[in-house]
């Protein structure tokens, strides 16, 4: 099997300018521009076999995009060697090079040639592209007159119709709606069947596991783990899990506000043995423990908990002590616990918002918006189910038509 991409000790730095001098005056006044080197890639070794699908995973800022851009020749590494055998189409953005004044047709040829697709190829695919975009006669209207949906569909239709030897797909493609994503994955599967080489970046480990045979996990610009995608994803998850428990579930993003009359001093996720954890399994008991401190005795308090998907922040479920008929009357320090006997979430990562609010006199004492996170792993004892939540259901089949 031949090698499509080969990296040896690839280093890439960016200059982080403290004060960027772009004009003559600045250049003259400050003789030397001050900058620090930031090494985004620190000696990356990589080998991608031709005809395989390869995943890149890692936290934000781990060098994934820099690596992709280096493979696409957009960035030149400072050191090391990087060999790419074959034509490359980078899908780092939809509609690259589209010009608003040009018609859809003209933009397809222009955008196509920027993605390394020649006129004949676009011509051959033209009807497919226009069909998929579903824009009909608008194909000969300037794209500035398109609705944003039409624009996105046209750009997307072009993107999935490129036909390179090596395809680089960035996360951006997964921002489209569900049907876009389905089409995209279908197309990637098609290209994979045809024996093209595909390199993809994704935060979604399930995508990496199901689409890629091999993967690499980057951390601070170095390869943490490389190999079969299952093993790499598992290693990455374990690391994230360890991180999560070390940081007692504090998510990096999120905000806090409130009067502070009653404070949330900590939130932990507790398993059936009363031990704080960062990761749980589906259908296991799950408890959120909210520690509080009230500066003075306060009654008429409700505690609210909301659980969201970390992937797209969709709101999965929420509970309030008030709705459950519990009026909180707090003084000093203590803990409030909310327990689910059986966690209904499937494998994935989730973020949590916790708030203490007034009931009769509305007002927020303390709200920690999306500041906590936990992970859920598959529970091997359960039957297979898909989706984000686990629900119980039963199947029956009647050999004769059911009477209406």
């Amino acid at each position, binding site marked *: 099997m031949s090698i499509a991409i080969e990296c040896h000790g690839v280093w890439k730095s960016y200059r982080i300018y403290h004060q960027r001098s772009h004009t003559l005056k600045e250049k003259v006044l400050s003789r030397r521009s001050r900058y620090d080197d930031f090494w985004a890639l620190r000696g990356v070794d990589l080998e991608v076999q031709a005809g395989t699908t390869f995943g890149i995973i890692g936290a934000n800022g781990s060098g994934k995009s820099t690596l992709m851009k280096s493979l696409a020749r957009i960035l030149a590494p400072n*050191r090391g060697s990087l060999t790419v055998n074959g034509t490359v189409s980078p899908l780092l953005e939809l509609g690259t090079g589209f010009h608003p004044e040009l018609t859809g047709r*003209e933009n397809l040829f222009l955008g196509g040639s*920027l993605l390394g697709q020649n*006129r004949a190829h676009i011509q051959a695919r033209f009807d497919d592209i226009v069909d998929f975009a579903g824009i009909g006669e608008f194909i000969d209207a300037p794209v500035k007159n398109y609705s944003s949906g039409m624009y996105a569909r046209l750009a997307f239709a072009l993107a999935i119709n490129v036909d390179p030897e090596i395809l680089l797909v960035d996360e951006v493609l997964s921002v489209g709606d569900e049907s876009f994503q389905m089409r995209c994955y279908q197309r990637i599967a098609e290209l994979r069947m045809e024996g093209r080489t595909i390199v993809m970046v994704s935060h979604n480990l399930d995508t990496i596991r199901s689409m890629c045979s091999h993967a690499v996990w980057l951390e601070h610009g170095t390869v943490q783990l490389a190999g079969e995608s299952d093993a790499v994803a598992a290693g990455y998850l374990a690391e994230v899990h360890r991180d999560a428990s070390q940081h007692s579930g504090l998510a990096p993003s999120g905000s806090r506000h409130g009067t502070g009359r009653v404070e949330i001093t900590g939130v932990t996720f507790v398993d059936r043995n009363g031990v704080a954890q960062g990761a749980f399994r589906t259908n296991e008991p799950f408890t959120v423990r909210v520690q509080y401190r009230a500066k003075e005795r306060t009654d008429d308090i409700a505690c609210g908990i909301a659980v969201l998907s970390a992937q797209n922040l969709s709101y999965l479920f929420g509970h309030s002590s008030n709705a459950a008929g519990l009026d909180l009357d707090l003084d000093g320090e203590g803990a409030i616990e909310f327990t689910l006997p059986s966690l209904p979430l499937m494998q994935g990562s989730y973020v949590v918002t916790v708030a203490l609010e007034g009931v009769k006199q509305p007002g927020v004492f303390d709200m920690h918006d999306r500041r906590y996170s936990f992970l859920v792993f598959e529970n091997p004892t359960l039957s297979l189910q898909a989706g984000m939540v686990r629900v119980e259901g039963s199947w029956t089949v009647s050999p004769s038509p059911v009477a209406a």
Partner: protein
Amino acid sequence: MGKREAARQRPPRPPLRAEARELWRSRELIGNLVRRDLKVKHRGTFLGMLWSLTTPLLTVGLYYFVFKVILGAQPVSDYPRPDGHDIPFAVYFFCGLTIWNFFGNSVALAASSVVGSGYLLNKVYFPRAILPLSVVLSSLVTFGFELCVLMVSVLLVVGLPSAHMLWLPVIVAVAALLSYGLALLLSTLTVFLRDVAHFIGVFLQLWFWATPIIYSLQFVAKRSGFSRVLKLNPMTGVVVSFRDVVVLNHAPPFRLLAYDAVVAVAMFAAGAYVFSRSQRLFSEIV
């Protein structure tokens, strides 16, 4: 890791020949970019591409009106055609202006061609030299339209051109090479120093007046020794040669043209060298 070691391990830059081959392989993209530039320029206007013809027509009409009707300018006579035909000043001026515009527009627009395409540099790879090249080529197309109007007005007002017209491709090639070399140089410079974009307008205006477009070389030669300095300006030979073959039916001044060709090749070499050395930084800085 020491600086010297880092330099040694850096991947070798592709030699200029490889870059030229890559440019050739990207000719379809170049064509599309040129087409985009031309289309966008006239898109949404009533006359569309016809403007490419209308603008020079209006220009030549305007010059005729100003110089002949208002100022009562005499036909240019300090370097007459062999057949003795008078050359109205408007035609004389328009002729020099046509080839100058090709050069001036190329350089002015190409200087910001890299900076203006930051959105592309960060998303796809293509030989970066395409950016100034496509600007020079679209200026060349516009020049083609102006040349048509110029030839028609020469035919109507002055008379048939001579066999010296065969030099035209050589003269245009020298102008194009000079433009592209300067475009490579200035587009690189603009990336690192945005001031260049502002500076170029003034710079080109000075250059315009230092080139015998509105006056003739003979006119300057008669009055002062200043023409020696003018002859150092590589555009002097281009404009004079162009006017000699298109309007005046003379052979071009070969020594001057040869000098221009040497300068153009040197300019191109310098531009290509600087551009090719710096292009890896473009996507990070722009």
